[in-house]
């Protein structure tokens, strides 16, 4: 059983929802990334979403764009991100790691080589933002042959036929984008989220994660009430951006603990 699947199964048995925080690999400096991953797990993260820096992050808002720029200033690329995951795996063989990034770095490495290296490094899921299902059948097959889950986005504007298409290609979980906009936007409409998540549930047994607009304990609680996983990205990155290096780990730990509490408070 994949790590993602088994973690969702454990949480379900405990009646809990998953907390999936996002950080950009290499932000603010590559030497912090593995440590921050362990910190997040220690304080309540169930899975880690690790951003692969890209020069042109079209689907991201300003907060995550700046994180990419900080990481790129240290020339952190996909190869280094995979090394970080391998380093993380030396001490943690349980927590799933999901890479989130764009197609070009993957194509530059070569899709086959990437799939193999990702497997060797201990990557569990890959979300490639600008690979809609129509354009990546070969890639999905390669990932699945390495027991890596391809994670796909579903959006408020996805028509029912597209939802069918996507849930049939996805494994691990599906990721519902809770708003029309880029990461970190502020126009979250919870009643629409609840309605859409319920509708997606009629089409798949896969767990449903919700993200793009979760920014504090209150929104995390609201999302946890309807979804199986809460993805928090811009808020964690913002915490990193605003912290002195000395306080980085502690501040992030505090934020994750707060979100954990908010999510668990649903019950």
């Amino acid at each position, binding site marked *: 059983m994949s790590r993602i699947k088994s973690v969702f199964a454990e949480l379900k048995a405990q009646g809990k929802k998953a907390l999936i925080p996002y950080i950009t690999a290499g932000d603010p400096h590559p030497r912090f990334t593995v440590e921050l991953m362990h910190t997040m797990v220690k304080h309540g993260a169930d899975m880690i979403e690790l951003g692969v*820096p*890209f*020069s*042109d*992050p*079209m*689907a991201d*808002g*300003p907060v995550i*764009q700046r994180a990419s*720029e900080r990481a*790129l200033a240290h*020339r952190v*690329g*996909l*190869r280094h991100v995979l090394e970080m995951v391998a380093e993380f795996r030396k001490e943690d063989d349980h927590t799933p790691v999901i890479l989130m990034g*764009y*197609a*070009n*770095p*993957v*194509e*530059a*490495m070569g899709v086959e080589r990437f799939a193999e290296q990702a497997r060797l490094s201990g990557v569990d899921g890959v979300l490639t*933002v*600008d*690979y*809609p299902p*129509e*354009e990546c059948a070969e890639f999905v097959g390669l990932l699945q042959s390495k027991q890596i889950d391809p994670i*796909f*986005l*579903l*959006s*408020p*504007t*996805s*028509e029912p036929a*597209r939802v069918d298409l*996507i849930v049939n290609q996805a494994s691990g979980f599906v990721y519902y*984008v809770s708003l*029309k*906009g*880029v990461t970190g*936007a502020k126009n979250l409409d919870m009643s629409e989220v609840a309605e859409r998540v319920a509708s997606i549930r009629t089409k798949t047994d896969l767990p449903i994660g919700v993200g793009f607009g979760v920014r504090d304990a209150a929104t995390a609680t609201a999302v946890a009430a309807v979804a199986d996983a809460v993805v928090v990205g811009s808020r964690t990155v913002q915490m990193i951006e605003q912290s002195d290096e000395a306080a980085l780990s502690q501040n992030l730990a505090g934020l994750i603990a707060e979100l954990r509490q908010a999510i668990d408070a649903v019950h």
Partner: protein
Amino acid sequence: MQVYDMPDGRGHFGPYGGTFVAETLIEALDELRAMYERYRHDPEFLAEFAYDLKHFVGRPSPIYHAKRLSDQVGGAQIYFKREDLNHTGAHKVNNTVGQALLAKRMGKPRVIAETGAGQHGVATATIAARLGLQCVVYMGSEDVKRQAPNVYRMKLLGATVVPVESGSKTLKDALNEAMRDWVTNISDTFYIIGTVAGPHPYPMMVRDFQAVIGVEAKVQMQEMLGRQPDAVVACVGGGSNAMGIFYPYIDVDGVRLLGVEAAGHGIDTGMHAAPLTANSPVGVLHGNRTYLMQDADGQIIETHSISAGLDYPGVGPEHAWLKDIKRAEYVAVTDDEAMAAFHNLCRTEGIIPALESSHAIAYASKLAATMSKDQVILVNLSGRGDKDINTVARLSGITL
């Protein structure tokens, strides 16, 4: 004879093109594709497009025999397709007229655009004013500084110009920001992309709107000379003016198609904007797969050209395909060669060309010298150079 019929139903030109965007944009692209399919052959829509091209843009643009230039280079006869005489001073307006008419039919009250040198931004602001649409133009903050007159032009026309501070602060970043705006304001906003790049259906749609250039040229060359040219030459950044003049000639035997990229300081210096000529790796950016200037990690690298309109790391996917099937040839011209051609044309023909078009003129002059006097080269003179006089003066050590 095999008829050229690209792209396929999902926007692929062989391995290039496609729809590489986040799920949040798919619905908007589906809607756009459906609307474009509905109107692209609709007689009423086409009549309205033709009317605006004639009465607002000033089409057809003439063909001009550059006789003194031809005599000077001493070879083939050089003719210009005078897109510089269009309203707003370049070919860009052909496409913005078409897309804005589509926006109007789709009931979108707001249009957005990206711009590099500002020509597409001005063309978009112009048609938005004419149709009473709200207009927001994204422009890299570096380009805002370099192209102040065009920024002011857009403001005069009622557009809001948003300087983009992310990444390299140039055209590619303006495109990223326009995409982000679009995904956030999908319900009321139409994104007018200025070149034959981006996700399907943009490369096809922009090509179709620009094809008026080549359609006219075929008729005009027949009328003037009773024959078609031996070679058609056009500059290529994203590649919209080149696609516009190439497309109607693809199935015409015996006509060479030559795209001229910006070699900047020279291809071997790495400081250029010529992904086709340099044979850059294939990758994915701005919604399509194409040749792309990038480093070993797949990060997009900064480009260099004296001409802001050619300063782009990718190229329209149809050009990538035409290169691979060898229907078109791609070459590059340096900043210095383009500048020399700019000055030469001012003095031999009384035409101040855009720096972008100067690349095509530089190459056509070299090519003409290798050909005989009874042969014909048609150059797409895609824009006029008024916008570039500050750049040219600065390079000549003159402050205006």
